[in-house]
């Protein structure tokens, strides 16, 4: 039995390899023009799941964006939502939202895409026993508690969100617990993609061969650690019509190997060039090297509940003693961008350098402020996780700068196992500045401000005015109207500085000589636009 399975597996791999070779390996013998399949390959790290509700991994999302059509997508220029599967998303009170779905859309298996497809997928995601990671995105929907009992071992009272109502096949009504003006932009996230009825017959099988409604469809099952093969979906009627016949997502365990393969033109697109190779890649790839500002930010958080860090002046002094530009050059090869605001540039409402001198490197002023605040006694512990060696590198630079510029001599590193790190922060066990990282879910200042500075934050920072401003912004009549309110909240968080911004990540991508029309933005690699050179 085992042998049969093995052989079948191998046959599949061999066929796949032959196809990949055929796709990349030029004309070969005999084939005339147009014979060559216009397929290309994308380097990927093994995803965790391919069910939209079950994954928040960026690798999965790269694939899901190709095989699913969310309700909206984000315009990279304005950061505003553009309708995709939805015809309109409206609300009068920011609490009850009406989503109209474009009629006539189809899943890859021929099923129509209806309001129910969305309701089914969202209910499954919000249902705790499924254990899907995007569950918390539905916290704000009425009825969430019935699906997610707090106590251990308790059975959920319901398996459907009472706040979701299918009005007719093309209309879905969502009732939120509190007004939320940013709701439409949140829907661009792949976690809100629809699922067909066929999925629920066998969710496990669906996870390795998801049926979506996007421009590409899976061609065979996900071959774990090897390949995810897709082909253009012929009946796709949306605006993202594929310009190629299919994409092979080649899975790499090491980005270094993927980079070598990109240089050898063996893989066509790599969206994560290792930082160490960036300067070389710029020279080697020329125009085929693309750097895109992303939504990911690094911060230095302070344990405000610790008396020694209670004064905003001291926290500002530490922020001003850090040479962000120097660290970015030394540790990240200049690929990240030093930040003087709490939200990154691509988020609507971003104001350059709004943090002012509090985020500028000024050792003299920092020392002055530091002494005014009464200095610092005891050991300064710096917290970070062991997930990546670069954390320790930049923390060491921070430590050196604090010693040099503020005269703090007794600095210790607290390197916490990755699996324990967030628990440490959540339970407020850190007694010193810590690394805080945020990966954007959707481009709204709310996603940054409320998630990191809002109620129950890791710094233990409490500010009623801030909280009220966020609530007011969340219930603002439109997204435009919400921005000034979020900005006021940002000003407050900067004034008190419970957490200092450090830098914004930039994504470094490169592509091979085989493909053209590569347009990568912060939200998507726009794989549908890519064409294969003849």
């Amino acid at each position, binding site marked *: 039995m*085992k042998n049969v*399975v*093995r052989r079948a*597996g*191998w046959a599949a*791999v*061999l066929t*796949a*390899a032959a196809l*990949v*070779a055929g796709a990349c390996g030029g004309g070969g013998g005999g084939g005339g023009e147009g014979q060559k399949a216009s397929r290309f390959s994308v380097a990927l790290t*093994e995803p*965790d*799941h391919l069910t939209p509700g079950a994954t*928040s*991994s960026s690798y999965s999302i790269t694939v899901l964006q190709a095989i699913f059509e969310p309700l909206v997508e984000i315009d990279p220029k304005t950061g505003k939502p553009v309708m995709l599967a939805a015809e309109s998303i409206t609300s009068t009170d920011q609490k009850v939202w009406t989503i109209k779905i474009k009629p006539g859309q189809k899943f890859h298996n021929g099923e129509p895409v209806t309001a129910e497809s969305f309701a089914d997928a969202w209910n499954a995601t919000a249902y*705790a*026993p*499924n*254990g*899907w*990671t995007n*569950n*918390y995105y539905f*916290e704000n929907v009425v009825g969430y508690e019935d*699906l*997610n*009992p*707090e106590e*251990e*071992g308790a059975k*959920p009272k319901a398996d459907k969100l009472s706040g979701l109502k299918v009005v007719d096949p093309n209309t879905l009504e969502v009732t939120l617990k509190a007004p939320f003006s940013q709701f439409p932009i949140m829907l661009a996230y792949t976690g809100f993609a629809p699922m067909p009825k066929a999925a629920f017959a066998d969710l*496990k099988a669906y*996870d390795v061969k998801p049926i979506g409604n996007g421009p590409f469809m899976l061609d065979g099952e996900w071959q*774990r*650690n*090897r390949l995810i093969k897709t082909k253009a979906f012929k009946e796709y009627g949306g605006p993202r019509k594929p310009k190629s016949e299919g994409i092979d997502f080649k*899975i*790499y*365990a*090491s980005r*270094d*190997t*993927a980079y*070598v*393969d990109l*240089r*050898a033109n*063996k893989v066509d697109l790599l969206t994560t060039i290792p930082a160490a190779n960036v300067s070389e890649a710029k020279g080697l790839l020329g125009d085929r090297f693309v750097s895109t500002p992303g939504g990911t930010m690094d911060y230095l958080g302070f344990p405000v509940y610790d008396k020694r860090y209670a004064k905003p002046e001291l926290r500002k002094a530490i922020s001003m003693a850090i040479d962000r530009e120097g660290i970015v050059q030394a540790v990240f090869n200049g690929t990240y961008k030093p930040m003087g605001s709490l939200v990154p540039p691509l988020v609507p409402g971003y104001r350059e350098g709004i943090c002012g001198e509090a985020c500028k490197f000024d050792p003299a002023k920092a020392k002055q402020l530091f002494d005014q605040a009464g200095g610092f006694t005891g050991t300064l512990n710096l917290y970070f996780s062991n997930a990546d060696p670069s954390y320790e590198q930049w923390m060491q630079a921070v430590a050196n700068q604090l010693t040099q510029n503020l005269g703090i001599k007794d600095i210790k590193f607290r390197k916490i*196992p*990755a*699996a*324990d790190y*967030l*628990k440490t922060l959540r339970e407020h066990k850190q007694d010193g500045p810590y690394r805080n*990282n*945020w*990966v954007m*879910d959707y481009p709204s200042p709310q996603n940054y401000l409320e998630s990191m500075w809002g109620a129950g934050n890791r710094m233990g920072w409490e500010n009623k005015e801030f909280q009220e401003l966020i609530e007011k912004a969340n219930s603002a009549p439109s997204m435009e109207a919400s921005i000034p309110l979020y900005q006021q909240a940002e000003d407050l968080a900067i004034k008190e500085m419970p957490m200092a911004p450090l830098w914004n990540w930039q994504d470094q991508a490169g592509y091979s000589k085989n493909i053209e029309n590569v347009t990568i933005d912060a939200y998507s690699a726009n794989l549908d636009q890519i064409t294969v050179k003849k």
Partner: protein
Amino acid sequence: MGRYVVVRLLQMIPVFFGTTFLIYAMVFALPGDPILALAGDKPLPPAVLNALHDRYNLDDPLIVQYGKYIGGLLQGDLGETFTGQPVGELLSDRWTVTLQLALTAWVFELVAGVALGVIAALRRGGIIDTLVLGGTTFIIAIPVFVFGYTAQIVLGLHLGLFPTSYEGDWPGSFILPAMVLGSFGIAYVARLARASLIENLRADFVRTAQSKGVARRRIIGVHTLRNSLIPVVTYLGVDFGNLMAGAVVTEGIFNLPGIGQQVFQSIQLQEGTVVVGVVSLLVLVYLLVNLLVDLLYGVLDPRISHG
């Protein structure tokens, strides 16, 4: 002989339970909650956390967790990974790759190593001997990953002689990784074979054979080479385990989806069931290979018997 084999096989049962338990306990002892780590920087609501803890028995004490694992194992269920893949499927998939790699490297070691050693021994002090000694010292001194990346860039990328990464076919995708993986072994086997053969060529029975007028070819082929191979075979037996364990680095460099990669990832994710499954099989293969080696001794040198 038969009795000996049976006893050795029976000995593997306690070893199997011992290793599985030890490995399970070690993964269990790793700090932190693997489920929380899965969610990354994003929050995981308590109800979801509980559901996932239940699914992977993470709330149970060590003994109960291990008991459930063994219970499943006896029914042929090896559990599943955090991404929902059955461990049994994963093992057969990944072991195929690693076995192909390790065996290819092993053949390299055996053929190239013994050949180099014999040639060097027969031309002792000559140019070839000096080259073999110098070359092998050099290879032993280089860390595998340096050798691996260099081979990948030079032979794969610049000269285009080999694929730079896994393409799914044997032997194409395996030759370069196997050479890298086996390089240390080739050097070691060559030196062992050389030293052992030189020593045996000085033995009394060789002088006797020479004086009796036996042909040199027969002296080397029949009287000395066979028994000279005993230390080589011992080494190769032990090394088979090393090859599979050493595959962690080589598989990483050449993107071969084998068990080395898997163990590395699973330890990071604290996937107890996967680590136990992979490593226990590793132990079993190691034991079996060593049993084979012990049996081979008798074939190579009739003076050793397992009566």
